[in-house]
């Protein structure tokens, strides 16, 4: 038998390693020599971590246990492993199984299934077959043609056709070309790439190898965030194993083709998601973009033809080669083929990674797979595309997720962050949050981006402080257009999107802040105030909890908050046992 513990970063953060250690300890203590403890990557149901799967000797899954904290390990060992009975209390529920069954898993095909640290398991799942097929039986042009037929578009955000980039890099002759994997997942709120790297690193290596063969590159570089130590570790293990097995290195598959990969740890700069900035960073410089053309396919890393694709794009490639381009094209919509992985987070019941066919309505993802809004509050908006994207309001939840429909709303498909917001989320504050991010991450090269984002942020901060003025909305809109026009790279060109979409769909919230000095979501501190109602029993608890002594009143008498002294920390409301304190 085999006991497998999911150990992606999310799993580890919830204590999966301790659970695994406890299982091992108990199995050894009970002398169960026929049971092995193994690990796997993230299956995507982050809200159920730590997850423990039990497989029988025949390799079939006997049970999936969820939220297995170390103290629950004993039940699994004693009842299931020793007694042969499923521990019903810990087993995954039908509803939670639906989280997985409604998905179409191509990129995540091996995540949460195989042990990412054992190449044998990847090979057993058909791994490196696609690379072998490409290198030994196809010409580079045939590989590119297959990718063209598949309709695969770059999953990093822009959605540019992958085959087109490969073809351009192929056509530029040079003594050296580079295949670069962009694993600098900088969108705050997205973790698809991390999970793929942690759960199935070989699929990315194989995709890069195939791409390298197609464009004629012998060297690959993975530019990965230093904040993802586990992903880096698993990539290093995978690369070493691939070299041992002859999947990386010289004369692969007995042909003259050679390809090897190295890792470069990024140092934390959102702008490095932009191709030319990433190249500057690879060269050890400040990650500042430069004008295109020349495109990286012409002159990239060290002035050589370079192709850059995202992690998820590469993970698609082996599947496309094995199943044929037409198989991917048959999934999704006409212009957006295949699947997309989304990181579902925010005010959602079942947060995690979901992979769905393109063309699924947003509503189906949030309510069908994600189980709806946390605490059954009202769904207000979903943010897609991170700092470059926008907020799509609840009334547009029927919009299908593909490269044609989403941009019409003002947002972008982006790399896959999908942050759900409820009635308590202030949309002006969200715009302020993203502008604060882009303002910090602007490299400073273009005036409009450097100074313009700062000015926009100042206005938004003023509005959320209750000091908004007539004309602020128009000024924001004007600045937004100027920044879009006056910036060289994608960061500046898209930075105003969160502001523009929130003004477009939630203009009333801006107006409430500016003219009525009101934050209807009760989120902006300067615009809310606490009051004690008649329900007050005069227990004095709130007065004792107030850190600034703003509450006065005698025992058994209704208390009063002095609004000038109050710092709006909310401690009184949290401490009141009678629900007598209201926020307005």
């Amino acid at each position, binding site marked *: 038998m085999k006991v497998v513990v999911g150990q992606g970063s999310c799993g580890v953060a919830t204590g999966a390693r301790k659970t695994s250690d406890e299982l091992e300890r108990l199995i050894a203590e009970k002398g169960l020599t026929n049971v092995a403890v193994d690990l796997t990557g993230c299956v995507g149901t982050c809200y159920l971590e730590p997850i423990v799967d039990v497989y029988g000797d025949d390799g079939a899954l006997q049970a999936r246990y969820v939220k297995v904290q170390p103290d629950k390990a004993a039940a699994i060992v004693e009842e299931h492993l020793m007694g042969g009975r499923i521990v019903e209390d810990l087993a995954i529920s039908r509803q939670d199984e639906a989280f997985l069954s409604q998905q179409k898993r191509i990129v995540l095909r091996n995540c949460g299934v195989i042990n990412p640290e054992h190449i044998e398991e990847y090979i057993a799942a058909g791994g490196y077959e696609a690379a072998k097929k490409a290198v030994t039986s196809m010409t580079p042009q045939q590989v590119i043609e297959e990718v063209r037929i598949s309709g695969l578009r770059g999953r990093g955000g822009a959605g540019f056709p992958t085959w087109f980039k490969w073809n351009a890099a192929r056509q530029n002759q040079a003594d050296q070309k580079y295949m670069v994997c962009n694993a600098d997942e*900088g969108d705050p709120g997205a*973790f698809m790439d991390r999970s793929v790297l942690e759960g199935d690193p070989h699929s990315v290596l194989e995709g890069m190898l195939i791409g390298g063969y197609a464009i004629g590159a012998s060297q690959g570089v993975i530019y990965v965030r230093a*904040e993802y130590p586990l992903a880096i570790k698993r990539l290093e293990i995978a690369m070493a194993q691939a070299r041992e097995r002859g999947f990386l290195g010289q004369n692969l598959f007995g042909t003259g083709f050679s390809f090897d990969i190295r890792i470069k740890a990024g*140092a934390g700069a*959102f702008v490095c998601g932009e191709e030319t900035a990433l190249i500057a960073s690879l060269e*050890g410089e400040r990650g500042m973009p430069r004008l295109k053309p020349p495109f990286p396919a012409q002159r990239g890393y060290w002035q050589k033809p370079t192709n850059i694709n995202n992690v998820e794009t590469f993970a698609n490639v082996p599947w496309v080669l094995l199943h044929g381009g037409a198989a991917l094209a048959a999934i999704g919509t006409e212009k957006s083929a295949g699947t997309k992985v989304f*990181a579902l987070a925010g005010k959602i019941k079942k*947060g995690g990674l979901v992979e769905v066919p393109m063309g699924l309505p947003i509503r189906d993802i949030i309510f069908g797979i994600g189980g709806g809004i946390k605490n059954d509050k009202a769904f207000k908006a979903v*943010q897609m595309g991170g700092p470059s994207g926008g907020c799509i309001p609840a009334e547009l939840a029927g919009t299908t997720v593909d490269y044609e429909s989403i941009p019409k709303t003002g947002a972008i498909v982006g790399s896959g962050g999908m942050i759900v917001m409820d009635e308590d989320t202030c949309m002006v504050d969200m715009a302020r949050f993203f502008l604060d991010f882009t303002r910090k991450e602007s490299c400073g090269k273009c005036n409009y981006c450097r100074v313009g984002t700062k000015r926009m942020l100042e206005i938004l901060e003023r509005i959320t402080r209750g000091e908004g003025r007539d004309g602020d909305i128009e000024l924001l809109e004007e600045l937004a257009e100027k920044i879009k026009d006056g910036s060289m790279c994608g960061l500046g060109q898209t930075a105003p999107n969160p502001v523009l979409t929130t003004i477009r769909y939630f203009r009333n919230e801006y107006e409430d802040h500016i003219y009525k000095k009101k934050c209807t979501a009760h989120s902006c501190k300067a615009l809310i105030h606490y009051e004690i109602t008649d329900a007050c029993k005069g227990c004095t608890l709130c007065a004792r909890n107030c850190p600034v002594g703003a509450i006065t009143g005698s025992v058994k008498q209704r208390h009063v908050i002095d609004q000038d002294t109050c710092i709006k920390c909310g401690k009184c409301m949290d401490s009141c046992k009678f629900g007598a304190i209201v926020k307005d």
Partner: protein
Amino acid sequence: MTSNGTCCCGCGSKEAAFSALAPVLEQYGKTPGSLITILQHAQDLYGYLSTDAIQYIAEYTGIKPAKIYGVATFYTQFRLSPIGKHLIMLCKGTACHVNGADSIEEAVTEELGITDGQTTEDGLFTLNNVACLGCCSLAPVMMIRTADGDETYGNLTKAKVRAILQDIRAKEAASK
């Protein structure tokens, strides 16, 4: 090593002070494009990039100190001042923001008396706000880094944060 980057034996030698960096410079020092890698190793070794460390790297690699400083200040990973024993990396990503990361930051500030970028007087804690830790479904999240490794804490509340920090304080006091 002393705080001014010279050898602790009093000989004043910078060579000795940065001896641990020598193998790194040996490996990457002359390879074009390796500056970020060198700085990452230097920060791993010393916890931060001191002026002397930057000077030393400049002398070895031939890259001007101003340029190294430019690269070091461009990327959020690099620090130019020392950090406490426990580095609190508080996630301020979108999911964490929506789920109340600001109140988590308040709790850290109330408990330790430090704000983003500051270190406690006893040198035990440094608070750094980070863009995203990638554990969005456990939001709000923080990671605490020590020499022994990283520990991630998810689904935080103000009370949880206080308990975690008090626990570390108590363990530190006990080990003394």
